[in-house]
């Protein structure tokens, strides 16, 4: 339930607010997107993977972040947005896991294990998704 304020600003859903606070306390790289796929927060460990601080980047619109970060299979095949775990969590409303290579804004390519799950405030109300990136491949 997002409530527009008296100034017309869209108040963030409580689930997103609590997810952001949770992510800010984690030592694991964590990304939070809203229901439209806009990247609305990532924590300090995630900054190391993306190569830019959240304070510098701010919110990143869905159409922007797909072009800012190069995401590919371990063999170098590009992974379309809808096939990466975050895309699956948002579009198919289910958890997803995949091993990927990501090249951040610092130009460094890293191998990561990514797990994402949708945030459902109620059964039918998708408010966003959380994605966790682990550097290195799963054992």
């Amino acid at each position, binding site marked *: 339930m997002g409530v527009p304020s008296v100034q017309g600003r869209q108040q963030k859903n409580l689930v997103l*607010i609590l997810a952001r606070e949770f992510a800010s306390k984690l030592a694991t790289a964590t990304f939070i997107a809203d229901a439209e796929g806009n990247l609305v927060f990532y924590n300090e460990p995630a900054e190391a993977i993306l190569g830019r601080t959240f304070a510098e980047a701010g919110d990143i619109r869905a159409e922007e972040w797909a072009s800012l970060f190069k995401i590919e299979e371990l063999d170098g095949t590009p992974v379309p947005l809808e096939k990466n775990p975050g895309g699956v969590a948002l579009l198919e409303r289910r958890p997803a896991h995949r091993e990927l290579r990501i090249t951040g804004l610092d130009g460094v390519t890293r191998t990561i294990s990514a797990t994402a799950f949708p945030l459902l405030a109620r059964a039918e109300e998708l408010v966003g998704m959380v994605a966790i990136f682990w550097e290195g491949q799963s054992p």
Partner: protein
Amino acid sequence: MRYGGNTSCVEVRLADGTLLVLDAGTGIRPLGLELEDYSAPIHLLLTHLHLDHLEGLGFFMPLWRAGSELHVWGPPSPTRSLEERIARYLSPPLFPIHLSEIPAQLTFHNVPDEPWEIGDARIEAEPVSHPGPTVGYRLEDDGSSLAYIPDHEPALGGDLRALPPEWISGLGVAEAVDVLLHDAQYSEAEYETKVGWGHSSVAAAVDFARAARVERLLLFHHDPLHTDQDLVALEAQARELWGRDGVAPELAVEGATIELAGRVAAASG
């Protein structure tokens, strides 16, 4: 006892005479006794179903009159309806009579996602940070506004002074209201050992009210373990933190009446 000992209940009279009741703590019992001749529909807006906000409902006199019409509004749950959840309290062994045997005409409503109207008032509910499904309310009537967030821990979402407004729990319903009744249960020292319990320190209440740019802050949901002296000290702290500009924060007092531009009146129960 100078500030009262009942649990949360606030009576709101709209300009058109409609009666809204915010929460059904023990303060609703004396309110019910004053409604002997009241026959219009009553709207009870529950923020959540913790016992201190519900325990008075069984002792609300209009419930026991066949002609009464009571609309109960509350936060939805992913598992049980509002009626089922309330019936867990209003049924044996916790209560002698089952909810279904109550003579008044009861209608249960999940609070809508979007603002809605009761009488001439515009009502808004927003989920807020407190354990379990919980909402805060904003009431607007004839140019006046009131926000009611009695149980709220917005500081759990981060440092309120550092967060952008849209990332602060509850700000959407509280922004720029004439009067905010807000949780201020703990001192700073007490809050340190009670993080995650769902309540605010006085400093967090002041930070929240500042961020929301409210006109007047009433410190609400007093800790039952606090003496009047403790409460006076918390009020002094709130005033120091607030500074000199605007209306100084004050303690909510049981039985007090607040006139909002002569149009909306609220009384803490």
